[in-house]
């Protein structure tokens, strides 16, 4: 049984191939190769690196669209509003420059690691995942796409084609804090992303999320609700008093559940303050 390899030059061809057989998709390779471990390849490989139309960041009337092959380095160097600062900060924390040069935003989602660096900032941007199969396209919010640890809503024959950020979410300042046990190339113990929009010193809108403290990174909707309309300077104490019911941290080699819970509170405050500073000062990332 010979394994198949295909490197389609256009999306339609890719979708046709996806319909006729089962494939493992190869894009940046930064998760594909490590997941092989010491074993030989045992799946068909659909190499999507020939799909030029899937790379880059484009703007539509209503959305900013990150193509599925867009790398973290592409995100870092693409001029984007301050609402994306958190995503850019996260991009710089994805592995190393070597990884950022190849690894894609979409792959980070598709791999569905609880510690995926890109997910918390994408949650604060209300990102939607665009999924296509031959003759069909659907869009899911990140929270509906990520179902669990290494589990997604991707259907057979389907692939991620883009990540869409609604313009309504492209507002305010944003921040991202990653907590790890070493400086570079580290899997998060916990991380937090924040986006805040001020009006007259008060919090008009806020989006907060925490990663690596539950099977899937979580938006903190109740906390956001409690912060809306409040004076920005009161936020830290409100966050301190919040009990983070969204989180379900586990004990592992990187830290205990109890530690994650207490660290999450602190880094949410720090991510919020970062976002606030950028919203107030208009500091670019």
């Amino acid at each position, binding site marked *: 049984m*010979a*394994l198949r*390899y295909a*490197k389609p030059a256009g999306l339609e061809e890719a979708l046709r191939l996806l319909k006729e057989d089962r494939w493992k998709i*190869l894009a*940046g*390779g*930064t998760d*594909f*190769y*490590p997941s092989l*471990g*010491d*074993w*030989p*390849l*045992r799946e068909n*490989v659909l*190499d999507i*690196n020939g799909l030029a139309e899937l790379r880059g960041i484009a703007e539509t009337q209503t959305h900013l669209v990150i193509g599925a092959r867009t790398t973290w*380095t592409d995100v870092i160097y693409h001029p984007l509003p301050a609402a994306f600062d958190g995503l850019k900060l996260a991009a710089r924390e994805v*592995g*190393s*420059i*070597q*990884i950022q*040069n*190849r690894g894609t935003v979409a792959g980070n989602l598709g791999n569905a690691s609880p510690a995926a660096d890109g997910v918390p900032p994408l949650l604060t941007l209300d990102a939607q995942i665009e999924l296509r199969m031959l003759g069909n396209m659907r869009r899911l919010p990140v929270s509906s796409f990520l179902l669990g640890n290494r589990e997604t809503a991707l259907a057979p024959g389907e692939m991620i084609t883009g990540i869409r950020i609604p313009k309504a979410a492209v507002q305010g300042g944003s921040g991202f804090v990653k*907590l790890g*046990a*070493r*400086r*570079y*190339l*580290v*899997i998060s*113990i916990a991380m937090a992303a924040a986006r805040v929009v001020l009006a007259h010193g008060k919090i008009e809108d806020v989006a907060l999320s925490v990663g690596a403290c539950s099977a899937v990174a979580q938006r903190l909707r109740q906390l956001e609700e409690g912060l809306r309309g409040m004076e920005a300077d009161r936020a830290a104490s409100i966050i301190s008093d919040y009990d983070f019911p969204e989180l379900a941290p586990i004990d592992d*080699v*990187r*830290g*205990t559940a*109890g*530690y994650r819970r*207490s*660290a999450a509170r*602190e*880094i949410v405050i720090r991510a919020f303050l970062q976002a606030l500073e950028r919203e107030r000062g208009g500091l670019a990332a």
Partner: protein
Amino acid sequence: MNHFHPLSFEINGRPVTIDAPPVERLSTLLRDRLGLTGTKVGCDAGDCGACSVIIDGEVVCACLVPAASVQGARVQTVEGLANGTLSALQRSFLRHGAAQCGICTPGLLMTATTLLDRNRSPSEADVQDALGGVLCRCTGYRKIVRAVMDAFAEGQEEEEIAPGRAVGASPIRLDGERKVSGAEVFGADERPADALSVLVVRSPYWHATFEIGDTDEFLRAHPGIIAIFTAKDIPGRNRFGVIAPFADQPALAENRARFRGEAVALIAGERQAMMQVDPADFPITWRELPHALGIDEARASAPLHEDRPGNLLTQGFVASGKPDAALAAAHATVSGEVETSFVEHAYIEPEAGYAFMEGDTLVIKACTQAPYMDRDDTAAVLGLPPEKVRVVALATGGGFGSKLDVSLQPLVGLVALKTGRPAAIVYSRAESMRSTTKRHPARMKATIGADRNGRITGMIFEGDFNTGAYASWGPTVANRVPVHASGPYVTPNYRATARAIHTNGPIAGAFRGFGVPQATIMQETLYDRLADKLSIDRLEFRIRNALADGDRTTCGQLLSGGVGIRQCLKSLRPRWHKALAAAVEFNAQAQKLRWGVGVASCWYGCGNTSLPNPSTMKLGITRDARVVLHQGAVDIGQGANTVITQIAADALGLPLSAFTLLSPDTSITPDAGKTSASRQTYVSGKAAALAASQLREKILRHANVSDAAQLALDEECLVVSEGGVRRAIMLSQLPSEEDGYVFAAEASYDPPTSPLDENGQGVPYAVYGYGAQLVELEVDVTLGTVRLIRITAAHDVGRAINPLLAEGQIEGGIAQGIGLALMEEYVPGRTENLHDYLIPTIGDVPEIETILVEVPDPEGPFGAKGLGEHVLIPTAPAILNAIRHATGAEIRRVPATPARVLEAIHAAGRRQ
């Protein structure tokens, strides 16, 4: 993916067209199809950066790039950096001593090249941000940072070193150029074209019996696989081990595997066919047995080895004076407990090598720290006389103790011997981590007492060391720890016990320090608490108790000279006071951040503990006027090639440039022992000094001149000058001895030690080295994270033969000490890769100031002492002491991960 696709791209400026499987890793394509082995493979997962290459101006991990993606691209590898001459960056690496073993060097060079292309004078932060994805286990990164920042700095060319002035100078390492050019040949960089590939089938269980099924059917189903080997095929004694009386490990398990990762069978076949083999298809039936991973469970379990009841491998013991009475009468005592974790060596080069038959001699070429020990162990397993096995050391990409034990040597040897074909193995990262040795996890407790003047009166220490399934260096750890657990301090009443306990965990063996780093965490953290209890400055407390010439150790050994610990500690005083003042000032303002300062000492005996430990060195002068040094002391990056030659050069009286080195090869270099126990500079260096002196003596006698004469080499002449008289000896006219030398000499040196009695009294080591380190750091008290600010390291090296290399050892040892203290915890079965198992990156090692203290040792060559292991011993306890100083947190379990630090901070808060 068997189909080959045609690919055309540009490699280092020249076009290439080749057929390759499209999903093949670019690293494989470069190394195996294009022969560009300068690109190294350390993990195959993007975790180490060793395979970094540049594609169209962007640095990537070649192990993560499909071959198909380079179609039409421009690819640059380390082989393309030099353009006739080395690039500025490569020269800067050499000048700064930024390459040690050299396995990570190509990846670093390529990554830094992309930085320098954009920014010719980067800041330290720029360099760290750029190189954060490349791991180095040897250097501690500081010299790399400097080399990149200074790559284009002018006027830093090397000075010529005058004859007789090599010792004390820092010439560019003699093996440096091939490390920065990608030409160095490591274990995986060479393999005969017709070599069989060998896969090792390993136990997936901690403890299990097994039965091997129908291998004939497996062979029939896998064309291209030519043979299966199991324990039944081993012709010799299927037991190896670094310490002969304890040899207990089968090369291939017989019917029971005692740890996860143990080798049980070999699959050998043609290279292409083997790439498709999944070891999971191998016919074997397992029956799991109860296992014990922890010390307590293991003590209560059935013995793993019949003759070791209670799973006690062995116990070391040192006692002197009346420790119980001394502690009872002490003015102040402190007691504590500390637990440490398995630590993985994490050299960037997984084990690799190959074997082939040369007539009736089995030749093994592999990375190693101990060629003669490899030869003897392999010969015994394969039932060959030692002289029928020849071991050639390929460059070793880091060892740190683990490559002292054989790994693949008997396995490739068996295949080559049985099939008559060359056989090669390259371990995967996971396989390397699963199957090779670790640092012993230790569970220790101790009590230390002092009188009202702050003088130590007594100490009792007990430690259990989890030695894993087989003996390896467990006995050495058990014996070394009690000798060193007092630290370099006068301790008149003392009792120390260290037990090595078998479990079904990974084999714990040698790792830089043989248990002493763990014991020193116990002792040095207690010293801080005791000093505080006595209200004595922590540094002054150590100075007051430090050993000095004329003192006796806890083994009753009289230290007649060369004791430099007090000088090391005193040299830290200025920085100590400055740092304490800075911390007070910072902490008066700070809220979430606290600064702390810590200090700790080390001492370490060089060479085997009370056992013979000779080195032999040989050198000769050829008829074409070269000095050939048979340099059998394996250079695993620490610099033996350079240091031993510097010693030989000055003892002989000829310049370094006259020397040609022969690398370790049991057929041509005499036994210079193993590269371990900080013994090569001292023991092999001394042997080199003796051999070189004898050679000089022969020449002087031949020329009939006194020792005041000067030697020089000139074309085919050896020129001997004395008192204005110059005599040229025409070497080409003289007869040569059997191995082609006109003059030659060989000498051995064995450190004068004596056995320890039942109380550990005696002379365990002839030479000790000493050191002390001062750590300044910042603790984030809400997250428990630690940021190191600066480390000041004072080490008494006796005589710095090569100050630059000595600094490199210190910085590298500190980096490993940082890992031990803050992040390294090998959890068997869970951290078998370099992203779950964390070692320090370039951003985790702070500025390091080195103070080289030179208190000459009466025994060492030119007064030199060992250094290699000393350097990591004080780091972890100094960090823990600084954390306690900053926050009051007492860490009882390392690594001090953020979670543990925060918990200890909270516990300290509750105590107040």
